[in-house]
């Protein structure tokens, strides 16, 4: 190999590291200004009604199915939670969903890309926080909603308009700071 191309090759790691560093710096800047946020992703759906859909129920759970008609003319605000049994952060967020259920908040679940037995096992092990539960095994409805990963949660007000989206687990902090404020505001 000629000396110059060898020299260029040896510069490659530095170039990659510099590009990566610039990207990371942009992410951190974005975190500060809110432009980059791995959790609360501004959704195109915020301020609009959810897309038309109808999902089959998770039969052994005995819970009613979930369709877009169930998100109109509501008695109170509703959380729509996309989850899966294979998702580790879902375990972390689960106690908060159970707490919301105890407090009487309606939580509707969408079981995303999951096997029915695995989903049932998850609910049996950790408890069932959902009033309604639809099964989205192919993940089509999740695409319409713009879900980019589980867990992800949408806040729907009583008129059926999506007001908030959270990509990531609902930690106790998110519950106290964001969800409670939304529940008070749209009560």
């Amino acid at each position: 190999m000629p000396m110059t191309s060898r020299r260029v090759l040896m510069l490659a790691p530095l170039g990659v590291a510099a590009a990566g560093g610039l990207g990371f710096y942009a992410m951190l800047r974005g975190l500060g200004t809110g432009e980059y946020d791995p959790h609360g992703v501004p959704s195109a759906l915020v301020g609009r009604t959810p897309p038309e859909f109808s999902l089959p129920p998770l039969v052994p759970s005995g819970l009613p199915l979930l369709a877009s008609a169930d998100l109109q003319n509501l008695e109170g605000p509703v959380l729509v939670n996309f989850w899966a049994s294979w998702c580790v952060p879902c375990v972390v967020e689960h106690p908060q969903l159970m707490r919301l259920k105890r407090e009487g908040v309606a939580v509707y679940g969408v079981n995303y890309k999951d096997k029915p037995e695995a989903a049932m096992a998850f609910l049996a092990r950790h408890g069932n926080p959902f009033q309604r539960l639809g099964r989205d095994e192919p993940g089509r409805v999740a695409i319409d909603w713009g879900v980019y990963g589980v867990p992800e949660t949408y806040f729907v007000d009583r008129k059926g308009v999506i007001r908030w989206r959270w990509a990531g687990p609902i930690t106790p902090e998110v519950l106290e700071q964001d969800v409670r404020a939304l529940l008070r505001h749209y009560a």
Partner: protein
Amino acid sequence: MIGEFGHFALALALALALAQTVLPILGAARNEPRLMAAAAPLAFGHLLAVGAAFLALITAFVVNDTSVITVVQNSHSAKPLLFKVAGAWGNHEGSMLLWVMILALCGGAVAAFGRALPGALRARVLGVLGLVAVGFLVFILATSNPFGRVWPPAPDGQGLNPVLQDPGLAFHPPMLYLGYVGYAVTFAFAVAALIEGRVDAAWGRWVRPWALGSWCFLTLGITLGSYWAYYELGWGGYWFWDPVENASLLPWLAGTALLHSAVVVEKREALKVWSVLLALLAFGFSLLGTFLVRSGVLNSVHAFANDPARGVFILGLLLFYVGGSFALFAWRAPSMAPTGMFAPLSREGGLVLNNLLLCSMAAVVLSGTLWPMFADLLFQQKISVGPPFFNTALLPLAVPLILAMAAGALLPWKRARLWPVLQRLWWAALIAAGGVALVLAFAGWRIGPAFGIGGGLWLVCGALADLADRIGLFRRPAAAWGRALGLPRAAWGGALAHAGLGVSVLGIAGMGLASDRLAAVQPGQSLSLAGYEWRLDKVADAIGPNWTARRATVTVLRNGDLVTVMTPERRFFPVGRTTTTEAAIHTTFLADLYAVMGEEQNGAAVLRLHYNPLASWIWFGGGIMALGGALSLTDRRIRVAAPAPRGAAKAAA
């Protein structure tokens, strides 16, 4: 008082680390022996100061000193002692302190065991280690002081996430950190070599023990983490391709490659520049993991509470160390003698293949982990990269790696022919094929697990064939025992580590054949699964130190004989108002019986039962791999470094 003492000790450590950076490197540049000789005492002093700070933090947690913020946020008086101690490093501030503690230990070990190193190299290595410590000590003191005060003291702590209150997790971070930070030493060796502009066989021999030691701890740490996921989060899963898990896998892959390429440097004085780059990469990946976990740029269960200011600081450190070392590499490496060509079919050729495959795997894991973040940043696109991507992309790399692993160890140096090697492996191939056939015959048409079993058997038998060949078991059986005793421990260690990976592969394949069952059961009723009868005897209350629980008693019978009694629980932690489930696991040689208790309704309890064939082999294999590494560390070639007098102790941590 404890807090102020710890804080002061940290500041002192920073001063000593600064001195440890400047004096020896200056001394090595000017060739002044007195300045270079200051390196070791300064490293010991640095270790003492960091050790004092670390002990101070542990003491604050043990006595539950609620005037220290970290204690208030992460501990509670009702926590068992083990978790109070482990709680000291279960949070951001404390874990950073653990990080610099281990770094100081490594520096102390280099100072103590590195007497045989050439003076300038030793001074430079200790100087670079000091420089790494300076960055992180400044980070701790400026943004993450673990000894911050709160006044008036809180009445009690706010507890720890009960999911994290677990012995496995108590030992998991120290193991991982020993691995991560151990690579700081190989990094320091690489930087020192770049400064000197010289890499030779002796360099390979000094780097290898550190690469090996770090690799052992990292292997153990990853194994423990995976086992924790299995029994704590478990619905049979043991690896989730979570970004934080990937962050630990990356240095492991680079470190494994380094381990193998350092042998080539040592034996053949080839792959020198490449090995230096791998040493820089292994530590760079460790730092990248630290950045990803703590800056908040990604989304994971394991992530610490984070704030962007800290993120910018860690990014600065990352760029300083990684960017600085890569710049040094770009400047100095081209002048190092280009490595000679060698035959593709030879031991060193096999090791190059190993490096190529391992680095490709690292590239896959790295891009799968970072791509969602960069896609979000550059194209405002939200995508998720999950297990399907990693499994599909890594399988085509893992298959040739496993196939070549058994043969590679049998290849001689310099020039080899494939046919004699394959002749020595025919029985391993036969056993592997037999394994595939047996699984297909008895477990149905399950291609993945069948070939997994085949691959695992191939690795284990390949390692045995390697040993049998080296001791001449089949050629001259009478002399075999004597030759076995005379075989270098590195050969035993290498074969053991390869066999360990085979055992892990067998376990992973066995888990592919797992079965499970879910049902609501009344006390007295039984379920049958995998030839066992599982009888729910009763569900009763139980009380622990900081939780109350509902505990099921499940008796497992086989053909009417008692196998075991299992007690899965659902625990309620009043302080955090959370519930966790504790799976009951009965491990036997061939399979795990795994029982989980769900909710209770109308007197019936929901039970989920798993039968996981060969499950424990996954982690058992990890242990064997680490043991193989440790055995290799005791090899005479490593204990007695090249220029050292015979018998000089040079075992590395």
